[in-house]
C-alpha cells in the first residue's frame, strides 16, 4: 500500500494534520503564531547544519528549533526589546544564516524550493514512519499535559498560584512545537508551516464551544485541507504544499460565510 507515492503522501499528510490541529489551537490561544513562524524559519538553519555535520535532518531541525526558542528566552531577559522585535530578528537571521551555509556547501545538491515550500509527493516510507512516530509522541504528551497546559493558557498566574507549575507545561509545549515543525517540514516546508498550524484552528473557532471540541474540529479541517491539496495537485498539477494551504484557506473562507449568514 505504501508503495504508491500518493498513498504515502495522504497518510503522511493525515499524520501531520492530526497534531497540527490541537497544537495550532494552543498557538492561536496563546498568540504564538509569530513564535511558531520563527521556529519554522529556523528549520532552514537546521537543514543546513544537518547537511554540514552529516546528521539526521529531522533531528537537526528539532534541536535547532529548541536552541532558537532558548535564544529567544535569553534575549527576552537580557534585552528591553519587545518579543515581537526579537522574534523577527531571530526568524530572518536564522533563514539568512541557513541560506549562506547552504550556498557554501557546493558538494551537496539541495532542493531549496522543497525545503521552503514542502515536497510531500517525494515522501518516503521512512518519512511517513517518522511523521507517525513523532505525531503519536506529541499526541500522547498533549493528552497527558492537557489540563495544566490549558490552565496555563488561561492564566499563568492562577495556575502557578494554585500549584500547577505552568513553566513546566510551557517548556513541554515548546518542545512539542519544535517536534511538530521537525516532522512536518517535508509536507509544507519552512515558509508555509505556520499557516498549517493556525488556519485550521482559526476556522474551527467559529464552531466550537469548548477547547477540546475546537482541537477536534481543527484536526478535521486539517485533514480536509490535506485531501483538497493533494487531489488538486494530482488533477491540476498544482504544487502540493501550497495547495494544502490554499485548501485550508478555502475552508476558512467558507466558515466566515457561514458566520455571516447564520450568525446568531
Amino acid at each position, binding site marked *: 500500500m505504501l508503495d504508491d507515492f500518493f498513498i504515502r503522501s495522504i497518510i503522511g499528510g493525515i499524520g501531520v494534520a492530526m497534531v497540527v490541529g490541537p497544537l495550532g489551537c494552543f498557538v*492561536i*490561544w*496563546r*498568540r504564538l503564531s509569530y513564535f511558531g513562524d520563527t521556529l519554522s524559519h529556523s528549520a532552514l538553519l537546521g537543514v543546513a547544519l544537518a547537511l554540514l555535520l552529516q546528521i539526521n535532518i529531522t533531528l537537526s531541525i528539532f534541536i535547532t528549533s529548541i536552541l532558537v526558542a532558548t535564544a529567544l528566552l535569553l534575549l527576552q531577559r537580557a534585552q528591553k526589546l519587545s518579543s515581537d522585535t526579537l522574534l523577527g530578528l531571530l526568524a530572518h537571521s536564522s533563514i539568512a544564516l541557513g541560506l549562506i551555509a547552504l550556498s557554501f556547501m557546493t558538494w551537496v545538491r539541495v532542493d531549496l524550493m522543497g525545503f521552503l515550500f514542502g515536497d510531500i509527493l517525494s515522501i518516503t516510507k521512512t518519512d511517513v514512519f517518522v511523521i507517525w512516530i513523532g505525531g503519536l509522541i506529541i499526541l500522547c504528551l498533549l493528552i497527558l499535559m492537557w489540563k495544566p497546559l*490549558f*490552565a496555563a*493558557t*488561561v*492564566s499563568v*498566574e*492562577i*495556575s*502557578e*498560584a*494554585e*500549584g*500547577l507549575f505552568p513553566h513546566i507545561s510551557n517548556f513541554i509545549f515548546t518542545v512539542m512545537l519544535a517536534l511538530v515543525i521537525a516532522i512536518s517540514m517535508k509536507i509544507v516546508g519552512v515558509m508555509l508551516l505556520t499557516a498549517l498550524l493556525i488556519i485550521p484552528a*482559526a476556522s474551527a*473557532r467559529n464552531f*466550537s*464551544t*469548548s*477547547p477540546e*471540541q*475546537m482541537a477536534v474540529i481543527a484536526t478535521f479541517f486539517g485533514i480536509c485541507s490535506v485531501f483538497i491539496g493533494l487531489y488538486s495537485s494530482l488533477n491540476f498539477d498544482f504544487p502540493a504544499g501550497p495547495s494544502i494551504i490554499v485548501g485550508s484557506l478555502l475552508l476558512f473562507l467558507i466558515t466566515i460565510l457561514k458566520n455571516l449568514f447564520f450568525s446568531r
Partner: protein
Amino acid sequence: MSENQNKLIALENAGVMKNRKWLVRGITMSVSPGEIVTLIGPNGSGKTTTAKIALGLLNVSEGTAERKNKIRVGYVPQKLQIDWTVPISVSRFMSITNKISNKDKEFALSLTDTRHLAREEMRGLSGGELQRVMVARAIALSPQLLVLDEPVQGVDFRGEETIYNLIEETRKTIKCGILLISHDLHMVMSATDRVFCLNGQICCSGTPNFVANTPEFRELFGERMAKSLAVYKHNHDHEHRIDGSIKK
C-alpha cells in the same frame, strides 16, 4: 520558626529587586487560618508584588517567604490576560485548575449572583461579571488561603456589597485565611483583622482603627480620607449629636 507553624503564609523581611530597583522591601507579615489581612496603599506601592511573593509567583531577593506545605490556594488575580479565541464557558473556567462538581460550581456562582451565566462563554461577560465569576471560582475551590487582588474592580455598587459580604462569610464557613488587596477602605475598616499599609515597604500596620489614626496613613491617603474613615468606623464609645459633633 515554631510560631509560624499554624500560619498559612509568613513573610520575613522579604524584598524583591527588579532592574536594580526594590519593588518592595522589608515586608514582614503573615496570614493565619480564619484571618482577613488587607494590603492597602497608593498605586505602585507594591500591594500586588507582596501578594505575589506570598503566593510564590515571585522569588524574594532578600528575606524569606514561607507557605504551609501543600496549601490549597484560591487566587483572584488583578487581571486575567487571556486571548478570547479560547472557547471556554464559565462552568469550564471554574474547574481549570481543580475538579469541581457541578453542584459546587452552581452554588459558588449563586453566591455572586452569576448562576445564570454558567453556560455562557467567558468572552461575552462584562468586566463586573468576569470579576464575580473569578471570585466564585476561587471560593468554589474551598481554599485554605484565598488571595484576592482588587476583587471588586468594575463591579457595580450592589455587587460590591455582595462580594464583600461573601468574603466575610467565606472566612466563617470554610475558615480560610484571606489576603485581600483593596482600594475600598470602608471594607477594610469593617471586616479586616489586620491592615498593612504599603508604600514600597510597610509604613504602618495593625487593626484598621489603629492604622487609620496613624500619621503615616494620613500622609498617604490624605486628611479627608482619614476623617471619613474615622466617622465610618466609630467604635460606639461615643455618640453623634444631631449637629455632627461627638459626645464621648
